[in-house]
């Protein structure tokens, strides 16, 4: 219903809205992009912090940017070997 409304009045179709939306996404990506070196540092820092709480498989450890429809996310995939006992009591 809303779609139809938007179409009839031509608001969402205006090509500048398309341009703005595309720019918004691409700029989030451009601005967030870290150099390969900075990305590696981020990975190592994350690894260090998380290792204090659990035993992680650093071979399978992945950090990447991911795009979900209209938002950007930093996604980390961290395989856990075991959780340390002390972290449970915290």
């Amino acid at each position: 219903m809303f779609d139809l409304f938007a179409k009839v009045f031509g608001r969402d179709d205006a090509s500048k809205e398309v341009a703005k939306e595309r720019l918004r996404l691409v700029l989030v990506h451009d601005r967030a992009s870290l150099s390969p070196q900075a990305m590696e540092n981020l990975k190592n820092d994350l690894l260090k912090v998380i290792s204090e709480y659990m035993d992680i498989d650093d071979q399978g450890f992945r950090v990447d940017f991911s795009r979900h429809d209209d938002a950007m996310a930093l996604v980390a995939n961290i395989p856990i070997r075991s959780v340390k006992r002390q972290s449970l009591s915290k």
Partner: protein
Amino acid sequence: MGEAIVITSGKGGVGKTTTTANLGAGLAKDGHKVALIDADIGLRNLDVVMGLENRIVYDLVDVVEGFAKLKHALIKDKRFENLYLLPAAQTRDKTAVSPEQMRDLVEQMKEEFDFVLIDSPAGIEQGFKNAVAGADKALVVATPEVSSVRDADRIIGLLEAQEKHKPFLIINRIRADMVKKGDMMDIDDMIEILAIELLGVVPEDEAIVVSTNRGEPAVLNSQSRAGEAYRNIVRRLQGENVPMMKLEDESGFFGRLRKLMGFKG
């Protein structure tokens, strides 16, 4: 001590050279002592836009390499005796000059001129680094298109990372008729996306092509809308608070009539 201003963009062909020529001529017309540096080594263009291509003897690289004195390389403008151009070398490339050498050169020129305007090449490589090296202020030119705005964003990021003075935006080639139809980003859209201060908006104008053909900057043409926009930017560069020009749609019947009758916005 003068002020050095670099005109840059990231994307090519958006109007850096046109802007440099017009702001230079406008500032000179207002009585300031102005030097223009064409930093686009290998793709010299500011000379033809200014109509000075027949007067070149020495160029920027000759000066930097100590082969020619600055005062011998500077070309005096035809119209204003307080306007000079330091042309780019045509047969060399960007690596012929280093950012340190550019900084020294600009520093030296600031002692003699009120304004030193530097026309940057497109891109983010050494040519860009050379062009911004000695600048106190940066003007980023962008057209209301996705690729141009994206590249402008990148340039702004680089300028801010270098802790240059805050960059200012000049929107070029805006078309009121397309903005009205929603087929072109408007001024607010661009400011919102790029989040920098706006210095001016220059409409798409045939007079730019005509004036480039003749080698006469449009800023000197009182009939040109783009010229008027550049005159406003010139005043803002001198610290005046000038309201943004209203974008007129001259494509409709009344627009054409207004134009015919010589009304200005």
